[in-house]
């Protein structure tokens, strides 16, 4: 059975580290739904979050193969425990000739915000887990969507659990 996992990594902040991880996924045919990476408070380390899916055996291989990469310092499948998952989406729609009340209602229902409003376009923003974001996008699909920009998932474990060296 295929399940969705969020894998957090601490990586050496080295040129090439990102391509090692990305290369591993493509070379071994592992699936990547989203991948995000950014520096941490420790300048020598980056934090990466990968959302992937696979059978239990594949997820185990992904974890092991990631651990084997020399630039990878720590690997943690945060979906194994309580965790927080966040993704940002920005949706630009064309508002020309739209029923704005109806749109506004969808925005309120989904707890999204309008962050840019022009004559003919507007940008809607939502922060949440991927499910929430999928639901908003689905609800908006009836309108002329000009752009949908997702940040990819970031995740962190709840409680005392930390990923550190």
């Amino acid at each position, binding site marked *: 059975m295929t399940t969705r996992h969020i894998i957090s990594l601490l990586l*050496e902040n080295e040129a090439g580290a990102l391509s090692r991880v990305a290369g591993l996924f493509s070379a071994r045919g592992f699936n990547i739904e989203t991948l995000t990476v950014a520096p941490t408070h420790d300048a020598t380390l980056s934090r990466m979050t990968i959302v992937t899916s696979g059978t239990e055996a594949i997820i*185990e291989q992904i974890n092991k193969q990631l651990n084997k990469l*020399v*630039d990878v310092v720590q690997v943690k499948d945060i979906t194994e425990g309580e965790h927080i998952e966040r993704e940002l989406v920005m949706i630009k729609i064309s508002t020309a000739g739209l029923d704005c009340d109806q749109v506004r209602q969808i925005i309120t229902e989904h707890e999204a915000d309008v962050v840019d409003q022009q004559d003919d376009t507007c940008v809607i923003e939502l922060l949440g887990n991927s499910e929430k974001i999928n639901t908003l996008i689905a609800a908006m699909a009836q309108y002329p969507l000009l752009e949908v920009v997702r940040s990819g998932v970031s995740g962190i474990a709840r409680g005392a659990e930390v990923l550190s060296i």
Partner: protein
Amino acid sequence: MELTGAEIITEFLKDEGVEYVFGYPGGAVLHIYDAIYRQDAVKHVLSRHEQGAVHAADGYARSNGKTGVVLVTSGPGATNAVTGIATAYMDSIPMVVITGQVPSPLIGNDAFQEVDTVGITRSCVKHNFLVTDVEELTETLKKAFIIASTGRPGPVVVDVPKDITGFKTEYSYPESIEIRSYTQFYHPPAEQITQAVEMVRAAQRPVLYTGGGVILGDAAAELSEFARMATIPVTNTSMGLGGYPATDKQFLGMLGMHGTYEANMAMHNTDLLIAVGARFDDRVTGNIEKFCPQAKIIHIDVDPSSISKNVQVDLPIVGCVKDVLSDMLVLLKQQPIAEEERLAPWWSEINEWRSEDCLAFKNDDGMIHPQHVLQELYKVTHGDAYICSDVGQHQMFAAQYYKFDKPRRWINSGGLGTMGFGLPAAMGAQFAHPDATVCTITGDGSIQMNIQELATCKEFGLPIKIINLNNGFLGMVRQWQEFFYERRYAEVTLEAQNQPDFVKLAEAYGHVGMRITNPDDVTSALEEAMAMKDKLVFMDFIINPEENVYPMVPAGAGLNEMILV
């Protein structure tokens, strides 16, 4: 001491204890070659093609356990090295490859002889580095040697831009270096070891299936002691040959696609498979759905990612195979039990399979049969030669008919299956063991893939014995076409009139050539060649053109469904 980057490289190699560097010069490594010229601690071996240099370093490493070292130039030097690097990677061979790179300011500009070496090699190295600052050079080289030789070994590429080799900085040799993101060593978990020993004691039909990890991890002695104490039958993968003495009565031979009947039947019927430093390669398992249907599996390996990759195991044990086997032995010895009696029914079943005599072959039709050549070679060399093989039928015949009693004597490209490996690998083995008998087993196809190395052999006086099993075909491919494509022999014929005269070719390179066409001459020819201690002898054996390798497990079949003859 203030040195240039180039001098740091040679000084570091000396301090690291490197005896030989196998390489080929070019523009980007001119400074380094100048530094090599100005010292004599590290010897350089000039191959005639970069692939040859890498395979030679590989053969050196396989035959003595040290890290092989290669130096090549940027661009085509690096790309020519890639096949050799991938070969070493697939078989987990410790190797450091220093590649020249265009000067740092030119990187990314499509400069002359620029390729993205780090990018190209990423998926076939254990790790790679691009040195961006001369201050980091020493540390990077040290890291490269540590990573290449510890844990599950593998090749590491260090790409050094030309300008870095000209800059100066302080040098001192670092004895050790911390790499925080790299685990060198796993302590074998006591709990799993106890559990493993309990499983061994409960098994009725156990099998030890062992691979290259036993050779690389120097665990042959522990494996033998363990197997004998528990009276468990042992089968080896092609990479594992020599890990357990082939002449021992508990040895079942090689397993897998061209394994013995007894080994494959034992695998199919075992109730406890103990995999040691082996990785369940598809050439070994056959159809994975039909693999070891009745077995519980214990898997001992240094590399956690090898475990449960192809086959789900019941008890994983991560650790050096040497340590794990030693720990298991301690427990076995504490409470010896009468294994021999308990396993008697299993052994009698195995002896039934053995009586099939699956490696018997026809040898009375006036043709030379490759099996016969290998058997005679075994006798003439007293089973003590370093046998370096190319890839094809001859490789399988060598694995089946030369009995390896010691580790590191059987040197072949198991994982990548690289034709052209045999001759340069033998050069490396001969450098590592100057007084030993070193043979290349090859075919008329493979030998031509790195034939230029005959010149390197001449230059260094390497007395390799080349056994060319000349069947006029790319034999292994022909065999598949015979079995599975109704004998449509597409592009596999190497007709005699289009082939070089190998005797003359050997002579042209300054060596001795022999052609053997009569089966009665096989033994005497081998003896004559071996007696020429200081000469390379190229022995061209004209063999049965359509010999097949048996037994064979066809693609998609289980190990118990093999074709015997």
